[in-house]
């Protein structure tokens, strides 16, 4: 019976939910968008789960599906990320986090990262998650060279933005 694995899903997602939260943090600007994106990613993961064969780690797979969802939504989201009405969902995000830090410089870096395009955000995110270029390129479906080139451009972009 495959429902065993479906039951596992919730357990696995619960265990690794930080990954999703972190993706949301990079890709959304406020608490509401964060919640929406979190739900959307959860649903996409849940839908894709039957195809997860376990040849990669669950967390690795989560990075891939989660980032793809975020990127796809981000692309659609010139009309902002919309999913289900969420006001009643029974979870409360502790949101002191969006106040990030008192450090002005850090705040500015975060703002600059949020301004990057969808793929570049993904690269920064995976970099922050300690992924190497091979893993970054695998997850995002770009070549390793492309990932390196983009990373260099991101660094320059951030520098110029912050020093402007």
């Amino acid at each position, binding site marked *: 019976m495959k*429902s*065993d694995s*479906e*039951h596992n899903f*919730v*357990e696995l*997602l*619960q265990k690794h*939910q*930080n990954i999703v*939260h*972190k993706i949301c943090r990079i890709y959304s600007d406020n608490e509401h968008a964060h919640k929406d994106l*979190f*739900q959307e990613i*959860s*649903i996409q993961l*849940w839908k894709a789960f039957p195809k997860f064969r376990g040849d990669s780690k669950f967390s690795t797979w989560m990075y891939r599906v989660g980032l793809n969802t975020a990127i796809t939504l981000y692309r659609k989201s010139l009309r902002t990320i919309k999913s*289900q*009405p*969420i006001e*009643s*969902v*029974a*979870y*409360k*995000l*502790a949101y*002191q*986090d969006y106040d*990030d*830090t008192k*450090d002005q*410089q*850090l705040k500015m*870096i*975060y703002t*600059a*990262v949020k301004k990057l395009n969808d793929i570049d955000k993904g690269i*920064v995110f995976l*970099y*922050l998650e300690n992924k190497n270029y091979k893993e970054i390129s695998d997850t995002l479906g770009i070549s390793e060279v492309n990932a390196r080139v983009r990373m260099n451009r*991101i*660094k320059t972009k*951030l*520098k110029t933005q*912050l020093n402007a």
Partner: protein
Amino acid sequence: MDELELLKKDWDKSKKNYPNLSKEEIYNLISKRSSSIVKWIFIISVLEFSLWTLLSFSFDGSSEAYEKIESYGYEFIIYPLVGISYIILFVFMFLFYKNYKNISVTENTKVLMERILKTRKTVKYYVIYNLTFMCLGIPLAVIMELSSNPETQILISDIKSEGENNIYIFYLIVAVLSLIAMALITILFLGFYYLIYGLLLKRLKINYKELKKIVDVE
């Protein structure tokens, strides 16, 4: 220091700050789709209702039809029926709204499943009610025409004068035609309801099955 390095340090530091959803909360999150489907059922029922109401007001023949009904002396049946049908439609709309509200605040998978079933039932009753009402309208209209329309009266007496048995054949034809009309209306509206509600119900059902798998394993 490199901007990204700075960011990374902070990133690692803020690890513990993320919200931690319980398994139950994650179940709810995944199953939340139901809420938006049920919301659409409610919205569509309101739209459908407004459509019919608007149509009946903008339709030129409607006042004529009412005059006709009054001249036949059937207003004592028709007006209460129309009133009752509006009341019933409002009751259904209220039920749809209640279903939506209930489903949006459900916190427990089992209860959510029950409510999904309940919503499906409400929609089914709604469709059955509408079809019955429309189908009953036809015999009522036929009887009204046969018994009170002066032109039909003349027609009937003409037929009777041609031969006693002819009138039975005439009634038979009328009955068969009415049945055909009822069947056509049923098919037409079943198709219409299938398109707008059936597809939503199907998605609800899928959702229900997924939930059931989770509960069965637990």
